[in-house]
């Protein structure tokens, strides 16, 4: 038998077919495509989450690699800690102040900017309003620390000009949190502005035109036509802003007040950061992380459960 024929026979053997079969099945399987993404998620998200959950029951030192079983002590300790209560209450205040601001103001600005006829002026406004979003907090803080200075700061010069007493913007326990709110808003609202501008630009022109022909004025068109049509973007902005406020505010808190004076401007994530990376109590920090994850998961579920029904996806 010629050699090439022998090879062909071998290639068609049941053994070869058997060997090929799982590969072929795997090749046709969706796991081949989803595998890398799933592996990355398992390795970098689910395993660390599981490890964090496990760590929350121990006292663990990063350097000595020793772990002592503490059971639910870290959870009990955290839930009884007045600083945690304060951080939780402050987080609520930050959300109450920043959610409407970071969604409402960019939405109003987007409606205004989309109507600017002059393209150059529109681009200038968009750039100016988005610019703070690309600055890092440490850079922005240098400017804000000067503005907030209670003795030589610009803000107190302004308040003085209208006859108000000078304020201690960052060191007054009643004001520090609101100063952080102001800086975070200034720094972060630009992203939502871009999202709303993009959504408004995609509203079908013929629908708006039809409404206009039917006699709908600018307000009616904005409220009854454009707003419902951009509701998916609005819903997306609300959900992500909630998470961004929790997350991004840590940068502002750290550079402006370090959570002070006496924790009055701290929030949940900063509380976690202090436990983990300032005091090196990793077990306690892990318990705080689990509690925060539970709170975020609960609120996000509520947002989807109650908010998504008002969203028009078509």
């Amino acid at each position: 038998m010629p050699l090439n024929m022998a090879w062909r026979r071998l290639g068609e053997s049941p053994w070869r077919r058997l060997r090929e079969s799982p590969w072929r099945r795997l090749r046709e399987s969706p796991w081949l495509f989803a595998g890398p993404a799933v592996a990355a998620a398992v390795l970098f998200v689910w395993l660390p989450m599981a490890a964090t959950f496990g760590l929350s029951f121990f006292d663990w030192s990063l350097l000595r690699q020793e772990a002592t079983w503490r059971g639910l002590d870290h959870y009990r300790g955290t839930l009884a800690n007045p600083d945690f209560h304060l951080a939780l209450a402050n987080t609520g205040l930050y959300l109450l102040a920043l959610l409407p601001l970071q969604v409402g103001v960019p939405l109003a600005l987007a409606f205004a900017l989309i109507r600017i006829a002059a393209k150059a002026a529109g681009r200038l406004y968009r750039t100016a309003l988005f610019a703070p979003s690309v600055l890092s907090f440490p850079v922005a803080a240098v400017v804000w620390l000067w503005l907030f200075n209670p003795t030589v700061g610009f803000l107190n010069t302004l308040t003085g000009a209208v006859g108000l007493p000078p304020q201690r913007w960052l060191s007054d326990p009643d004001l520090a949190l609101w100063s952080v709110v102001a800086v975070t808003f200034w720094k972060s609202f630009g992203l939502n502005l871009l999202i709303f501008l993009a959504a408004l630009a995609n509203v079908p022109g013929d629908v708006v035109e039809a409404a206009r022909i039917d006699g709908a004025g600018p307000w009616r068109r904005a409220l009854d036509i454009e707003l419902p049509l951009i509701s998916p973007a609005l819903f997306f902005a609300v959900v992500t802003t909630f998470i961004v406020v929790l997350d991004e505010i840590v940068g502002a808190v750290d550079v402006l007040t370090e959570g002070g004076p006496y924790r009055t401007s701290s929030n949940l994530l900063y509380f976690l950061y202090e436990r983990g990376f300032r005091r090196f109590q990793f077990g306690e920090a892990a318990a705080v992380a689990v509690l925060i994850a539970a709170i975020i998961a609960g609120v996000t579920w509520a947002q989807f459960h109650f908010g998504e029904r008002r969203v028009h996806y078509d």
Partner: protein
Amino acid sequence: MSRAVSRRTFTLAASTALAAPAILPRAALASDTRIDLVHLFSGAEHPIQKLIKAFNDKGTGVTVVSRQDGTTYETITQKAMSAIAAGRGPALMTTGWKLGDFAKKTLGAQDFRQIFGPERTEALLAKFRPAVRPLASIGGVPIGLPWSMSTPVLYINQALWTQAGLDPRAEPKTVEELYPMVHQLQEKTGKQGLCYEVNEWLPQAFIQNAGGNVIDADGKAVMDSAAAVRGIEAFVQPRHDNLWRVMTIPEMLAAFQAGAIGVMASSSGRQTGVRQAVKFDLRLAQMPGLAGHPRRMNSGGNFLAVYSKIKEQQDGAYKFMEFVSSKQGFEIWLATGYLNVTVNDIPVPPGNAAAYAQMDSGLTSETIWPGARGLEALTVHIDWITKIVNGAVSVPEGLRADRQAIEKLIAA
């Protein structure tokens, strides 16, 4: 005879000439022991950069690499901890006095006697004044070179001081003398009279000068004793008298440098930076004590600790510390504003006489926060001091709550 250079010769020579600057220093460095020095000092012109360069230029076979990992002791400690856990810890690190206990028990700062031997350790520390040698020892174990010492002093805006009609050379010995002067300055100039740092360090000076302690020799929290209460009441007095508008330390420095504050109490170690930034005549005066009590001022700063467990790097660190302690090295280092704590005969730098006089009359160490939760105890203490300063709680109540919270953390 033709002197023309062939193309091949020219190409070879040119390539060698171009490659040499890139290759030769690397080759030289490759044979050196390389040690990272982690610190918190900013700026290319900071004396630490000059000190490192002067040492490296000596060609001892050790190359020190400057690594600024933050601007506070806590920040560089956090990063060092992560680096040590990853097996890439610093060989040397400037470690705050207050973090000494943590550095030894948690970070693993090395015992000098074990890594250098008793004789070499003694020889190194003998270059420092006897009073400062114990400051970098934890439980009797020397873990650091006590090279950076500062003490709280008054920074006086001499332009405002004289404008207010005050004696240009007046040095208030007690806060009871200082506060009326500050009141006069504020009345006459319309500027803020005084500003204190709100932290754990300056209040410690007040507590000690009233006869109390923050933590006693047995490691027990005693910051609510009658003497300590008297000290903190003297500390917050200018706040009640509207002579002191409370602000953060960066805000205080910016305002003082802009000429908006008459007198600021801060670390003598800030002197170089403040002096470079101000446009008015600046005078430093000793920190006043409290009437009727002996002066008992505290010190602060950092020590140089060895964290490397590699013998070669430990020996390299020793060579660097020998240079730092020498007259040549310390003359460079004193440009920071830190005090000359060595036995080297170096003239007092201009403008620093007050801090030296304060050191000569004796300084105590900065409070070292004991236990595995010492860093947390420090933060809690600062929080209670801040509450007291802001009037959220009375001095006795605040210090009592402070002591109770600290006791729990020390015992944990």
